[in-house]
């Protein structure tokens, strides 16, 4: 039932994403961005998406290409503005995309809360700033906190390094970033990996995302991408 499926193509991996879905997209800039899955999502055609990701696309690839294809209604992210975020910048200035700006740690913690069954939490980040507007404030132990609610995804699309056929995952260096958190926060978690191994092929002490959080795994195509120096 819930055990992960190893699928043979990125297209099979993203099958079923419906118009209007909330999709969590891994990556910090290009590191950890699930390129194959995003490209498949563009082919798949779902529209009116809400995307949750740290950034809002770089250059013309990956998330930026999804935005350029006009499939995204709203972005929740911490840092859309980068030297190479021209696709998002253009859509935003033309009023063709909605932005909800979330401090990076809140983005992570709100998704963690969704995955961990926490109803809401009091967080000190952003108190007294414009991003506190409309949020409930409470003083606890002499410190001010804002009430923050979970962010849950219908789908999470993430990139990991290795998977075993059960769906256990390891990551590579800072490409780990939002992957493990997003994997817990979505109804259906889809992962592209560099390599699939048999059960027993991953050290049980070093598994970062246990299989219970993974629904579909596909092997990624080899790819060279340039590292951007832009946040």
């Amino acid at each position, binding site marked *: 039932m819930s055990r992960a499926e190893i699928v043979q193509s990125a297209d099979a991996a993203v099958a079923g994403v419906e118009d209007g879905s909330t999709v969590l997209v891994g990556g910090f800039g290009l590191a950890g961005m699930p390129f194959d899955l995003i490209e498949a999502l563009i082919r798949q055609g779902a529209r009116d998406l809400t995307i949750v990701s740290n950034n809002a696309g770089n250059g013309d690839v990956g998330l930026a290409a999804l935005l350029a294809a006009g499939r995204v209604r709203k972005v929740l992210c911490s840092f859309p503005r980068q030297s190479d975020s021209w696709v998002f910048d253009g859509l935003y200035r033309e009023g063709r995309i909605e932005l909800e700006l979330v401090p990076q740690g809140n983005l992570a913690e709100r998704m963690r809360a969704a995955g961990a069954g926490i109803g809401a939490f009091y967080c000190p980040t952003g108190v007294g700033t414009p991003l506190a507007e409309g949020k409930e404030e409470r003083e606890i132990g002499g410190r001010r906190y804002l009430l923050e609610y979970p962010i849950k995804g219908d789908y999470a699309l993430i990139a990991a390094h290795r998977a075993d056929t059960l769906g*256990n995952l390891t990551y590579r260096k800072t490409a780990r970033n939002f992957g493990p958190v997003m994997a817990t926060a979505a109804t259906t978690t889809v992962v592209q990996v560099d390599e699939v191994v048999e059960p027993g092929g991953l050290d049980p002490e070093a598994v970062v995302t246990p299989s219970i959080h993974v629904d579909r795994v596909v092997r990624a195509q080899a790819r060279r991408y340039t590292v951007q120096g832009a946040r």
Partner: protein
Amino acid sequence: MTSPSDRPRAGAPTAADHRLSMDELAAVIARDIPSGAFVNLGIGQPTKIADHLPADSGVVLHTENGMLNMGPRAEGDDVDPDLTNAGKVPVTELPGAAYFHQADSFAMMRGGHLDVCVLGAYQVAFDGDLANWHTGRPDAVPAVGGAMDLAIGAKDVYVMMPLFTRSGEPKLVPRCTYPLTGVGCVGRVYTDHGVFDVGPEGVRIRETYGIGAGELADRLGIAFPG
């Protein structure tokens, strides 16, 4: 959360001609656990269910002290003090196991990622309330462990218990008299005399073992056919 799956059980009888032993009951529950499910088996009787899961079931066992793909009880040289189940019994690991810390383990439970958990109980109410952590005796040392977390966490919460106490009192009751573990959290109750669905719409007999459904309903004071 509280609606158990209603898919038909291949080859399952709708009744048995005798009251089931706890081992037979464990086999019944094992048959009801979907292939590939992530499952937590509570300490005590539910642990037996693992012995009845078919080798190809693909069921992955979770233990709340921080492991998925737990294997059978460890024997002899395989005993490792660093590897136990939630009942602190030495166990083994299967290929594809993963270890994680207690906060991640309970995030898994509370976050609704487990498909099934099977718990023992003192009492279950017709509406799915569960009492399994405290007899209410004032001189008892109370202990709750992970029971309350499991009760509210798994997608389907099953209870496995004898239907009557040694003195003949029903443990499936209109309303729990023991302190609650969770409210409306149980979906199905497996007992030696029969299997019941419980929940917001009340109790319903699914099958009976060695007793007529009418007589069983009578003894529990529930409407028949339930």
